[in-house]
């Protein structure tokens, strides 16, 4: 309990952009063959520091096989919500779920990020018992505490009952229970986010655990059995209000990125692959007259590739699909970054007009067929995947692994984990930074990145930027 609000809490996105830049990048390290415990890497992001772009501290977990994926803060700018009326929590603890084990680690980053340590471990049994959910995934800090989405329901393979969102206390980290009161037709889950003053939540769909834990199930994908719907919720009422089906061929609707400025009632979602033509697509959703709408606003084509350059999974198609596996929206809602993990490209779209994204920049790195090395000459396997944007919008960080078993199917030669950064020009344009290149320790891959003091997929705001 503090006397003043945490200085990293900002009333509006504009104030967050004006805040000092990040000093550290927290990155999840995973052991893809489960031979070593997963870890949290603390990377120095201060350009003037002698240890710039190096891992300066590692928090190694006491268990193996957790499979780290996404994570988040215990508190963020949403604590300044005038409705909560109590802004006195600290942005201090990282909440790190194991997507495979359902164990959740709470890591304390104070007093110094380079001395971060485990604060609490929530064992899987507690999550199962209190929520009936499993495989915790996205973490967001919000009005009622910490919200965690899950990919699995109950039972050993997570198929007994639908997955959903549960709530944790933001100070004691006690699992409080399920969030939903009325889930309507929602049966699959992946990402979620919201607009706090407008009081709605949006969630997306990936698949049930048997469809991803042992690798992508090609027959299910071609039969359009992966998720393809968006769900809209009344946030305070915890009630499902509307479903939008993007069409069964639009398989795997993943990251949901609402505009940060709460007066803007729109957002984006990325679809991994269209099974009719292997395209990846970006969809814009918006609210108008109390109803939600969505339309496909950008597509990225597959790249024709000779069979011998393809992994067995793709040989029948003779092409590399872009595989849009992550998207992220800059704090000023101007640029949408799109990871094409298959073709090895990070795209930057100008979304000033949200229903007409314009390609503004692009960087090639890695890729199933292209295998583009880094601009500094170092080889890179995998492709751009989890992407995180600095608050000021000038630096874009990303890593190159998707998910242990899927990595093997698309990149059978293996993916040594790296984290890179590109500088974004204010008017558009993206260029890899030659001196930011983090190699993960041997045998580790990297997944999500979180920036010290908040980033573009953490903080949600209750006041608009417009003055």
């Amino acid at each position, binding site marked *: *309990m503090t006397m003043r609000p945490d200085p990293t*809490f900002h009333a*509006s996105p504009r104030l967050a952009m004006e805040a000092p830049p990040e000093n550290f990048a927290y990155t999840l390290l995973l052991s893809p063959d489960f031979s070593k415990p997963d870890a949290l890497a603390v990377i120095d992001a201060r350009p003037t520091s002698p240890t710039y772009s190096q891992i300066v501290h590692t928090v190694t977990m006491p268990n193996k096989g957790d499979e780290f994926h996404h994570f988040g803060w215990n508190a963020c700018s949403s604590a300044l919500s005038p409705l*909560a*009326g109590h802004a006195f929590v600290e942005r201090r603890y990282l909440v790190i779920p194991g997507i495979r084990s359902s164990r959740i680690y709470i890591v304390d980053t104070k007093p110094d990020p380079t001395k971060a340590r485990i604060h609490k471990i929530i064992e899987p049994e507690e999550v199962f018992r209190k929520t009936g959910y499993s495989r915790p995934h996205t973490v967001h800090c919000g009005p009622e505490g910490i919200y965690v989405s899950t990919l699995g329901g109950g039972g050993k393979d997570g198929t007994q009952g639908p997955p959903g969102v549960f709530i944790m*206390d933001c100070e004691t980290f006690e699992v409080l229970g399920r969030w939903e009161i009325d889930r309507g037709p929602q049966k699959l889950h992946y990402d979620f986010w919201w607009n706090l003053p407008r009081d709605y939540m949006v969630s997306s769909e990936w698949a049930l655990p048997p469809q991803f834990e042992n690798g992508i199930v090609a027959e299910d994908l071609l039969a359009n059995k992966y998720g393809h719907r968006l769900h809209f919720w009344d946030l305070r009422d915890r009630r499902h209000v509307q479903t939008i089906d993007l069409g069964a061929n639009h398989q795997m609707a993943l990251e949901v990125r609402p505009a940060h400025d709460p007066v803007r009632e729109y957002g984006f979602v990325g679809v991994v692959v269209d099974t009719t033509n292997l395209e990846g697509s970006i969809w814009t959703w918006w609210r108008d007259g109390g109803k939600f709408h969505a339309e496909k606003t950008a597509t990225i084509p597959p790249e024709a590739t000779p069979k011998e350059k393809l992994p067995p999974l793709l040989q029948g198609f003779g092409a590399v699909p872009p595989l849009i596996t992550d998207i992220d929206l800059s704090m000023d809602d101007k640029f949408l970054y799109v990871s094409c993990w298959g073709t090895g490209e990070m795209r930057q779209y100008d979304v000033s007009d949200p229903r007409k994204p314009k390609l503004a920049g692009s960087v090639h790195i890695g890729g199933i067929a292209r295998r583009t090395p880094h601009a500094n000459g170092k080889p890179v396997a995998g492709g751009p995947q989890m992407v995180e944007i600095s608050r000021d919008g000038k630096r874009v960080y990303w890593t190159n692994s998707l998910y242990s078993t899927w990595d093997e199917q698309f990149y059978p030669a293996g993916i040594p984990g790296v984290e890179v950064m590109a500088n974004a020009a204010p008017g558009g344009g993206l260029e890899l930074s030659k001196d930011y290149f983090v190699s993960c320790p041997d045998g580790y891959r990297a997944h999500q990145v979180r920036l010290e003091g908040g980033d573009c997929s953490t903080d949600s705001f209750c*006041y*608009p930027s417009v*003055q």
Partner: protein
Amino acid sequence: MGWPLAVSAGLMERSPRALFAALGALATGHLLASLLVFLPFALLVALAEWQHPIQIAAGLLVIGFGIFLLFNRRHPKRLARIPPTQLGLWSFAVAIAHGAGLMLVPIYLGLCQLPASDHDATSTLVEANLAMAVLVAIVHVAAMVTAGGCLAWLTYRYLGLKFVSRSWFNLDTIWALSLVLVGVIALAFTFMEW
């Protein structure tokens, strides 16, 4: 209390009118919460021979609530369930949860002191007390809304949103202690008169 909500409303709708409408809703909720706490005491005062025990009970109640708030330091999750469109309800719930009306009860009881032998005028007494209760509540809410409204307007029009987080202090302990203090003072006065 709740003035940042008025700022938020004004900015979200881009209209000063929304700011004042929000202040109105906040004031109404707070007024109702204060009255809900006051009115039972206004009726109780009619039992004139019980005046001192009632004052002592009120004092103890305020002290007890202050102590409860001192020890109950959990993040207020329940208030987060109230939708942003229901500012009046929010204001009512916050006022009850913080004991905003309770703070004034001992002061109000002090204002209502009347000769202890006046048994015949019970109904007049009740009416006078009710009027006094409404008056105290209105004065209290008017003061609050004026102060909050000024802050909201200054932030909205001149100071900018940075003022929201800059001006925000954790007053939990001070508020809880002042409840205890008011209760103690009220008790002291009651015993001196008795």
